[in-house]
Structures are given as C-alpha cells and as structure tokens.
C-alpha cells in the first residue's frame, strides 16, 4: 500500500471520529429532551431519588454531564439499562450480542456478494439466453420477497420438514444454526449484486479493452476473471455500502424470527420496552458501524481502481 492511501485513511479516520462525536452530541441532546427521568418509579422517595441522581451524576450541569458521558463512552461504558435488565450495564448487555450480529452480517455480505457476482457473470456471459432469464428471475424474487418471509419459508422447509438445521439459534452450534438466517438475510444482496454485475459486465465485455484482450488470444477464463471482473467490481463496491446498511436493519427482524441473541433483536426488544438508553446506545453502534463500512468501501475502491489513487507522476508525450 502506498503512502497516499495511508494518508487518505488517516484523514478519513480523523473525520470519522469527528462525525461520531457529533452523533454522540445529538444523541445526548435527544436523551436530555426526552420527558421524565430514568427513575420515575413511584415507590422511590425524594431522598432516594437525589441519591440516585448523585450516583449517576445527573445532579451536575448539562455541560458537565456531556463530558462525563463522553468520558464514559471512551471507556466503553454506555450507562445502564432501565427496564430490560434493570441496572445492568449496557456494555455487559451488548458484550456477546455484537459478535453474533457482526458475524451473521459478514457471513451474509460475503455469501450474498459471491453468489450475486457469480449469477451476474453467468447472466452477462449467456446474455439473452435461458440462463440470463433464470438469473434475472432469481434477482426479481430476491428483491420482491421480504427477507423475513424468506426466512420463514427456509425455516419451515429446512428446519421442520427436512430437519437439517436447527429452527432457533443454538449457541452450541453457532455455525450450523446461523446458516438459514445468513441465507435469508443475503437475498437482497444477492439480487442487487446480481443485477448490477450483469449490466456492468455486459458493458465491460463490450469495451475496446476486452476486444484487445481477446485479440491477445487469451482464454475465456482469463478474460472474465482477470480483465472483466476487476472493472466490474468497481461499480459493485459502490452499491455494497448501502446494501450493508440495509442488512443491518434487516438483521433486526431476522434475529427476532430466528431467535438469534444479537443486537438486532435487542433493538427490537428495547424499542418495545421503551428502554431509551439501550436504544440510543444501539443507534450509536449502528452509526459507528456504518461509518466504518463506508471507510472500508472507500479504501477498497481506491485499491481496486488505480485511477482513484492520487499520484503526481503523470506522463505526457
């Protein structure tokens, strides 16, 4: 990796920190704007409440509280849960859950992109044939069937009728029981990536440089995987970022259906239970992941496309 890329990553990381700081600020203000306090229990006496305020630092000025909040955040302390698990620190609540969500998310991104790219390549190479139609059909299905419906179908088919996979998440079989949710979650990714790959690939295959590569006498495999794929991937990476974000929101529903103890199902739980602190923490985590993914995508972009790399050694004749 050359210097300009490292410099670029450094700049982006700095910007990410600033963005996250702003997000924390907004989240904090929203928290303060919310009616009531975390300790609205009628059984509490005034003295107890003051004691609690003191304990949680709520008697300090808003300014002080904000810095305290940020300070705690930097230590990984998100505060405590109010109703889901009373007084349990949220970081404890999240601990194991984040790992599962990220793992299933990554699994479906990788699976979805690979299957999608392969489907797209087949469709582009067999342009206007039955294979193209089959691939397009799968894409349309993937876009139009909501992932939770697909998850239910998969669970009924391969969990109950042909019991290959466990129906609900089983922490003793973390890989096997995550297969069905991974497939269900990746449908939209497969569909979108396949559609994009197809149209991009058709365009790339029609380009002058592919004709030149063909005139070199290279075989089909080299032509597709060495020459065409890289140029196709450039534009696929651009749609990958929004797809991953969609995956995050999709995971909430899928996790609930399949009983996966991830942050997605926790979010659903927290929203229904009005556990504001948890909701806000999760919102923060989602934003952080989003920013992280955008950064990774942009860096990937500059690695794959040499034209984006900054260089000063342009030649002229």
């Amino acid at each position, binding site marked *: 990796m050359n210097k300009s890329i490292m410099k670029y990553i450094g700049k982006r990381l700095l910007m990410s920190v600033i963005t996250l700081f702003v997000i924390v600020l907004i989240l904090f203000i929203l928290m303060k704007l919310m009616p009531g306090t975390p300790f609205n229990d009628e059984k509490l006496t005034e003295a107890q409440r003051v004691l609690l305020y003191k304990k949680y630092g709520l008697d300090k000025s808003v300014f002080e509280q904000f810095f305290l909040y940020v300070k705690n955040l930097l230590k990984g302390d998100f505060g405590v849960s109010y109703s889901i698990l009373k007084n349990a620190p949220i970081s404890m609540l999240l601990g194991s859950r984040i790992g599962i969500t990220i793992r299933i998310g990554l699994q479906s991104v990788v699976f979805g992109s690979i299957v999608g790219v392969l489907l797209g390549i087949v469709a582009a190479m067999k342009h206007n044939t039955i294979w193209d139609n089959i691939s397009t059909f799968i894409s349309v299905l993937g876009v139009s069937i909501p992932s939770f419906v697909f998850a239910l179908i998969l669970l009924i088919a391969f969990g109950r009728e042909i019991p290959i996979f466990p129906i609900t998440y089983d922490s003793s079989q973390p890989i096997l029981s995550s297969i069905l949710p991974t497939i269900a979650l990746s449908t939209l990714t497969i569909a979108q990536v396949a559609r994009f790959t197809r149209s991009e690939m058709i365009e790339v295959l029609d380009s002058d*440089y592919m004709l*030149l590569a*063909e005139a*070199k006498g290279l075989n089909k495999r080299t032509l597709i995987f060495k020459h065409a794929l890289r140029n196709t991937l450039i534009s696929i990476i651009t749609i990958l970022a929004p797809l991953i974000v969609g995956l995050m929101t999709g995971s909430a529903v899928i996790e609930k259906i399949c009983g996966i103890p991830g942050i997605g199902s926790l979010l659903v739980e927290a929203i229904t239970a009005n556990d504001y602190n948890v909701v806000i923490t999760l919102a923060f985590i989602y934003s952080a992941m989003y920013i992280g993914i955008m950064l990774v995508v942009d860096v990937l972009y500059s690695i*794959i496309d*040499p034209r984006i790399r900054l*260089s000063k*050694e342009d030649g002229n*004749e």
Partner: protein
Amino acid sequence: MKERVLSIRDLSISFKTNHGVVNAIRGIRFDLFKGETVAIVGESGSGKSVTVKAIMGILSSNGFINSGKIDFTYHRDDEVVKKDLVQLSKKEMRQHICGKRIAMVFQDPMTSLNPTMTIGEQVMEGMIHHYGTSRKEAFKKAVELLELVGITDAQKRMKSYPHQLSGGMRQRIVIAIALSCDPEILICDEPTTALDVTIQAKILQLIKDIQKKKNISVIYITHDLGVVAKVADYVAVMYAGKIIEKGSVDEIFYDPRHPYTWGLLSSMPDVNTVDEELYTIPGTPPNLLRQVPGDAFAPRNHYAMKIDYIEEPPMFNVGGKHRVSTWLAHEKAPKVSMPASLKQRIEKMKKEAE
C-alpha cells in the same frame, strides 16, 4: 518469388440483426506478401473492420462466415504450415493464431487498454500466455519492447497505469502489446484516427520502422488516403462489402480506374486545390440488408450505364497488379476518363514525387 503470407479468397460474411441479415462482406479476395503492407481503404461501413476481425477470429457473436477461405502460411520450427483460418475453431484461433501469429492495433488508444492493469502486466500477458515465458524474462522483453516503440523511462513506465499516459503513448503501448509475441502479421485498424496530427506522423513512422526491422506483413485499415500513400505497398479500395479496385500504390494513386476511387481521391483535402469547395461523393452507401442488384455504386455513379443497374461487374485486369470492378473497364464500354481537376492533381502529385 515473394512469399505469400495471407491469401483471402471469396470471403463472404453476414450479420444477423433484429432487422434481418446484413451481408457485410460480399466475396472479397486479396493477398498479403511477406514484409509488405496492404492498405484497405473505404468509407465507414464498407466492411474494412469486419474483414480484419474475421482474420483475427474475433467477429461479434451475431456474425458468421458464409463462404470463402483465409489461407495463412507461417513458419513453425523451420516447417511451413498452411492453415485455413475459416476452418479453425475459436479455441484453436485463440491458442495458435490470435496475438501470437496475427496481432492487432486498435483504433482508439484511450479505450483499448484495461484501466485497472499496469502497462507492464498488459504487455507481458501475451508472452506468458502463449510461450510460457517466465515473469522475469517477460519483464525484460517488455522493457525492450517499450524502448522499441519509443517509450522513455521504460522500466518505470512498466508500473504505470494507462490513465497516467497520453494518447500517443498509449498507442505505442498498444503497438508494443501487438508485437509482444513476434507476430507474422500486424493488423492496424485506423491506428492514428483518434490521435492528433503531429502524433499521427510519429506513429506511422514507428509502424514502418518496426515493419522493416522485424520483416512483418502489415494490413492497414484507414479511410485516410494521405496515410495510405505514406505506408502502403498495395491498396484495396472497398465499397459496400466488396473490393472494387486494387493494385500497387502507384497504380491506384496515379492511374485510378474506378469512379469511386476518383471520388475518394478528389475528396482528399489539399492545400493547393483550386476549387472553391471540397469535392464530395454524392449520395450514401447502399443498405446491405437488401440484395444489391448490379453494381452497388451505380446510384452514386455519375458515369453509370444501364448494365450497372442489372449486372454486377466482374474484376477486370487492367495491367500489372491492377484490378478494377466496373463496367467502364469493359472493352465495349464508352471511353470515359477521370475528371480534369483530378487529372491535374495527379500530375502535380507525380511531379512532387519525382
């Protein structure tokens, strides 16, 4: 006796389109001899590019060869091999011919290099693929090739990407790629059309120098007669999928016989032209979706006779290597000669040449 490298006989190619079958090439024949240059001239859509793509075996998937032969003679380990390229499968073409024996330089250098691969990788690729050259050796040869095509600082340029180079330099790279496997035939499909004039001259000179150095045969496609005069030994003029006149460059330029060639030569811009307006050939080429009765050029031909609309003229031998396909060359045809202004022009060209 000159060695015949390529001999095309009665080649006919059609394309299936949504509107029907287009007969793009309607029976052409020409020869290419070792170390010589044939220029194929004609306006857009006359079938120049289709012809060379057929030689390379890279016709688009809706195109097919109806009939004809493309006999290619080459040396393999001191053994003379003769192959009809029409009979070879796509796979055989890829393995033995494309890029290895016959290489091509394309029209637009700005788009014909892969934007995501380094120059070096693209130059080395062919040798590694066809000859299994080691990377180290391929690198060395690629640097030599870049130096041969006039790239300065070749070692450093190997790591450059196409977008870091100018159009002229990119075309030099494309030429280096074409030369990488020491081909017998180099096909240049309008290699200077997309470049500006000063660079055009340099690239033409480069191709000529390389041809002399490596003794390769060149097929040159162009619509620019100025280029033809500079590079070609033989000229074939194409119109509507047929060769309508061919001969040595002197025969075509100093003694053109076909009214279409007259038109082409007259419409060449010239600083000394006395005419107020630049000559253009009236009308447009025929639609090859339909069968063309008689001579395809007849409707645009000022000198057309009745027979031109009925029967297709054969190739008349008008001396030397000169062949022309027009009824005007028939012994019973009325004597017509080229327009006076063109005659003046040719006289002047002759004088300049002497």
